[in-house]
């Protein structure tokens, strides 16, 4: 280029030289000539520049065109979809998504003018509306990063928080460089209610559902992000085209939040009452309750304790009082989470690493009603009896004799009445109403291993129920099959020991026993609608199979009613479960856990109401209650009664039984208490003021509890010889004593000797992640 200028200048000069050397031109002519020469020079330079333009296009045109195309950025904004709601059967919102705003500053816009005409008003408005923002820091950021277009200052502000600023922005055109990016936040309006059923969401709170419904229905709840494109149309004006986001679908659950609330309140009250009662920690290691519609498999309530707040799922407060889990790499190389005997305290939490906390949170987030497996105990007795009746192994008219124990192979398996000499003469109905192990073992022997295993599958034991919740446990290795089941296993299985099940398996099977034999697939969602409310899918109740015949089912209703109601006689095990004014049926359960001899018990009650025409089934499980003597099934019955006492009137089920004066007085007090709680209390529905044991308020007719007492430890066990086969000391009456502790390990309700073979896989307290 320099050479071009040079050349043209030379030309200009030389021209003038010629003229002046002749000396014939006037001053004016020289002036005009010089101006013309200048014009010519300008022309030459412009031609040179034009040549340069042509050269650029010819030499680099294609390359530059490519660069431009690859640099091309279309200004586009993602419009987030809205995650679908989760509502209960009445339309009450359990989980919803709320639009929130991220505050974004554009430093380059604020610094458009050097006189700070935008900067100062914008900063002033920001400091007035958002006290959290460090204005001094922001000012130095903006001044030092003039080319910065994007910095998120505040996250997840609600519309209420930003509306003041928006008004100011509208009224003052000098407030610039602040934009609000839309996002959604997952909100759980009911707090901890239903937490383990719902699960929670992680990424942006818009996708990434974890556990429960949020995980199971992830693809239904999530939608598709939209996009806003900016481009220039043919008229060179900026066009914005919006491809709207497709919002996620709303799922309608069968959960009734009122029933759910009653259940959770009662579980919390139980925990409050028995926390630190005998040992440090919660009222029980696990508390679970499921209420189900017997005629459709719909879950009306499903709760476990402790719950957590899905909106604040990393909060460790609910862990306090739980047993501490530690991560252990087992022989197979898998990480296993093992329950320890330690109880988590605040001090422990402060010292735990995040990994350790996470291990325990995994356990907290799990829905114990579907993922916790345990030996169900006597609640399995109706299944055994129904199987025997259905396949014709027994007629129902049999009468058994219970002497307190039964010899099976080399083992001496006791009834809970062993110490009082046995139940004596037991009918089939009594075997359930009194929960007689010996009668059940005899029924199971009549049934045989093949039929036992067959019916366990029919009742779905060992199989997943396929409930529409994430995290249901596999139990296929926790039950026997005809090849592996020996006579001892058959005997122990008959009263619910030595195989594991989940709560949802038990109650779903139980529903089929009492509803005429129809096994409904349990489900929690019955409708899916889109964001406009249009129905996308109706999920109808699904009968999977007929488990037992209608007539067997009728008998089971009768037997279960006898367990609770007067016709079961004075030894009926479930009498405490009856809500005043109602007739219900049910079955108690008191199951030993492994290791057997430690007296760790799972007590439970499984029932249905009303007794004659069942509408709902309820299952309450208290895993290792915080009592000195854990084998008192009364507490499970009372918990069940307390729940039903409020749920049945709410469901519009009328009382059919006469009320005594005491009962009437109790109901009136309860009514008053509930009224006061919601009218005068602090409004949060807590009943924390009640410190007395609610179960001791009513005078009970004290009858010796069917679940027996712990046997005395006889000092003389030390003198008995050790049986080489079992490693136990065996007394002259054939009783086995633990060789080390001398405990009569069989002294609880299901009196299982430690030596009775156990399915190796039964180790319910430990789990591997993702189970």
């Amino acid at each position, binding site marked *: 280029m320099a050479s071009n200028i040079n050349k043209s200048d030379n030309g200009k000069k030389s021209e003038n030289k010629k003229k002046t050397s002749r000396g014939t031109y006037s001053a004016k002519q020289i002036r005009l000539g010089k101006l013309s020469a200048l014009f010519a020079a300008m022309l030459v330079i412009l031609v040179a520049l034009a040549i340069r*333009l042509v050269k650029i296009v010819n030499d680099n045109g294609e390359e530059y065109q490519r660069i431009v195309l690859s640099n091309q950025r279309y200004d586009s904004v993602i419009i987030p979809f809205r995650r679908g709601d989760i509502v209960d059967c009445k339309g009450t919102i359990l989980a919803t998504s709320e639009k929130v705003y991220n505050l974004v500053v554009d430093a380059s816009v604020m610094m458009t003018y050097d006189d700070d005409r935008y900067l100062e008003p914008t900063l002033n408005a920001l400091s007035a509306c958002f006290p959290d923002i460090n204005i001094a820091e922001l000012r130095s950021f903006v001044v030092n990063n003039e080319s910065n277009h994007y910095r998120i200052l505040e996250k997840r502000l609600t519309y209420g928080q930003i509306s003041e600023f928006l008004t100011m922005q509208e009224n003052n055109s000098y407030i610039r460089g602040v934009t609000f990016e839309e996002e959604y936040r997952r909100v759980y309006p009911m707090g901890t209610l239903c937490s383990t059923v719902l699960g929670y969401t992680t990424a942006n709170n818009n996708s990434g559902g974890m556990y429960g419904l949020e995980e199971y229905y992830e693809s239904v709840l999530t939608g598709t992000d939209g996009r806003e494109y900016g481009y220039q149309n043919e008229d060179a004006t900026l066009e914005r085209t919006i491809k709207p986001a497709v919002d996620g679908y709303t799922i309608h659950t069968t959960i009734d939040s009122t029933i759910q609330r009653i259940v959770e309140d009662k579980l919390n009250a139980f925990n409050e009452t028995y926390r630190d009662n005998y040992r440090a920690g919660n009222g029980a290691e696990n508390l679970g309750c499921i209420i189900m519609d017997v005629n459709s498999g719909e879950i009306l309530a499903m709760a476990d304790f402790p719950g957590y707040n899905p909106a604040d799922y990393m909060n460790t407060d609910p862990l306090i009082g739980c047993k501490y889990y530690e991560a252990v790499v087992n022989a197979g190389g898998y990480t296993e989470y093992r329950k320890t005997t330690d109880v988590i305290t605040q001090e422990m939490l402060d010292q735990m690493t995040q990994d350790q906390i996470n291990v325990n949170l995994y356990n907290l987030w799990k829905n114990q009603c579907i993922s916790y497996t345990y030996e169900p105990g006597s609640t399995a007795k109706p299944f055994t009896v129904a199987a025997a009746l259905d396949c014709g192994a027994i007629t129902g008219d049999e009468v058994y004799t219970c002497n307190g124990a039964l010899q099976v192979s080399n083992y001496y398996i006791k009834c809970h009445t062993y110490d009082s000499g046995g139940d004596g003469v037991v009918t089939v109905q009594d075997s359930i109403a009194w929960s007689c192990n010996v009668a059940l073992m005899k029924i199971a022997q009549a049934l045989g291993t093949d039929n036992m295993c067959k019916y366990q599958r029919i009742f779905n034991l060992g199989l997943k129920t396929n409930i529409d919740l994430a995290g249901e446990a596999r139990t296929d290795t926790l039950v026997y099959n005809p090849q592996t089941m020996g006579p001892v296993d058959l005997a122990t299985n008959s009263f619910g020991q030595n195989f594991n099940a989940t709560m949802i398996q038990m109650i779903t099977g139980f529903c089929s026993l009492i509803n005429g034999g129809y096994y409904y697939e349990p489900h929690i969602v019955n409708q899916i609608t889109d964001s406009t409310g249009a129905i996308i899918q109706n999920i109808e109740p699904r009968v999977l199979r007929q488990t037992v015949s209608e007539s067997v089912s009728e008998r089971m209703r009768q037997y279960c009613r006898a367990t609770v109601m007067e016709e079961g006689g004075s030894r009926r095990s479930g009498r405490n479960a009856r809500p005043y004014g109602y007739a219900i049926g049910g079955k108690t359960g008191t199951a030993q856990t492994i290791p057997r001899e430690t007296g760790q018990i799972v007590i439970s009650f499984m029932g249905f109401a009303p007794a004659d025409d069942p509408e709902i089934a309820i299952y309450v499980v208290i895993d290792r209650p915080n009592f000195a003597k854990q084998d008192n099934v009364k507490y499970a019955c009372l918990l069940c009664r307390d729940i039903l006492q409020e749920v049945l009137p709410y469901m519009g089920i009328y009382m059919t039984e006469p009320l005594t004066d005491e009962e009437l007085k109790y109901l009136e007090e309860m009514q008053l208490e509930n009224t006061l709680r919601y009218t005068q209390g602090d409004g949060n529905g807590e009943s924390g003021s009640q410190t007395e044991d609610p179960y001791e308020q009513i005078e009970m007719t004290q009858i010796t509890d069917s679940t027996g007492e712990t046997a005395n430890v006889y000092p003389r066990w030390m003198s008995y010889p050790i049986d080489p086969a079992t490693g136990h000391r065996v007394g002259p009456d054939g009783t086995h004593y633990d060789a080390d502790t001398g405990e009569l390990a069989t002294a609880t309700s299901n009196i299982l000797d430690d030596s009775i073979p156990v399915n190796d896989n039964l180790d319910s307290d430990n789990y591997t992640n993702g189970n």
Partner: protein
Amino acid sequence: MATGRNAKQNNRSGEIIKGNFKNAAESISSYAQTDIDMNLVFIVLFLLGFGLLMVYSASSYVAYRDYGNSSYYFKKQITSDLLGLVCMVVTIFIPLGIVEKNKNFKFLIAGLANAVLLLVIPFGVESHGARRWIQIPGIGGRLQPAEITKLLMIVFLAAMINSMGNAYISSWKGFLFCMGMASLSSLLLYLLTDNLSSALIVFMIAFVMCFVASQDFKKYIFLVILGLAAAGAVVAYVASDDSASEGSFRLTRISSWLHPENSAETSAHQMLQGLYAIGNGGWFGRGLGQSVQKVSVLPEPQNDMIFAVICEELGIVGAISLMIMFVLLMYRMLLIARNAKDRFSFLLVSGIMAHFAIQVILNIAVVTGSIPNTGVSLPFISYGGSSALFLLIEVGIVLNVDRVSRAESRER
């Protein structure tokens, strides 16, 4: 030898111009039919209209992004264009002779030219790292005093040189006095407004006006060669040593011009993006409004880099057409200068013509990457109210000179 051949050709072209002039003089009656040069008026109006169109095209996206109004810059530009046209018409009828009535009046103008620059100290407004604007109280508009200085210096130098006489201006003494006065303004421009390009333009205009007025030429050849050699030496110095340019942003600009790919500086980025735009436009362009580069990668595409947008949208064909339009503008000014009734008017028009020519050449040279980025706007095309206003006043002065010379030839 090459010089000799060039000289011959140029001599011939000089004769052709003379011939044209003779023809024009012969048809003097038809020439005097109209009061003003409608050709020039048409060219100016065309450039203004085209400039508005391109300002709108180049700025609509940026304006929408920053102000929510795609015609933000367009509206401001059309306002100052209309104001400038009014001022232009008024200027046509101002008797220019008053400048020469009083001997000292020209010095008042020179003083004024420098005084407006001093206004940035109390009334200056900072933008893009330099105090180049003064806020006009009451109106709310802003003016670039550099534009006033350019105009006033042209008027002053024309009067000054005219008062000197041919012999004096041809001497070193007269030349150095005029250049000294111009340098003073240039220095003030550079120091007070940090505006090197305007300082250079004032200096170059003064140089060209002295050249045109003087009977001498040897020293101009010498000075031009000297100037080019000095510029070449600076460039060579920067090119030889990478660390040489550190610390001075002028030298950094030279360095980034030499190696735009390596430079993180925004001016180099701007220049590269301008080249990409030219390449992307090709021969016939992407079509009006179809520039991709103006969307965010070219910062302020409506300003100094508007020629790049023109190249991208209208291609080389459109860009050269625009350059031809500028040549025509210059040609009309040349004709008017030749017909000027006196030396003062001639010098005025020459200075104005030089002003246009210098800005057009520098702007296009920057966009094509031929010289380092200096920040010169393209007359009538680039966005800028002050520039448009004072350039139109300059056109008014040219038309004024034309009007007077036509009136005189009619009288004769």
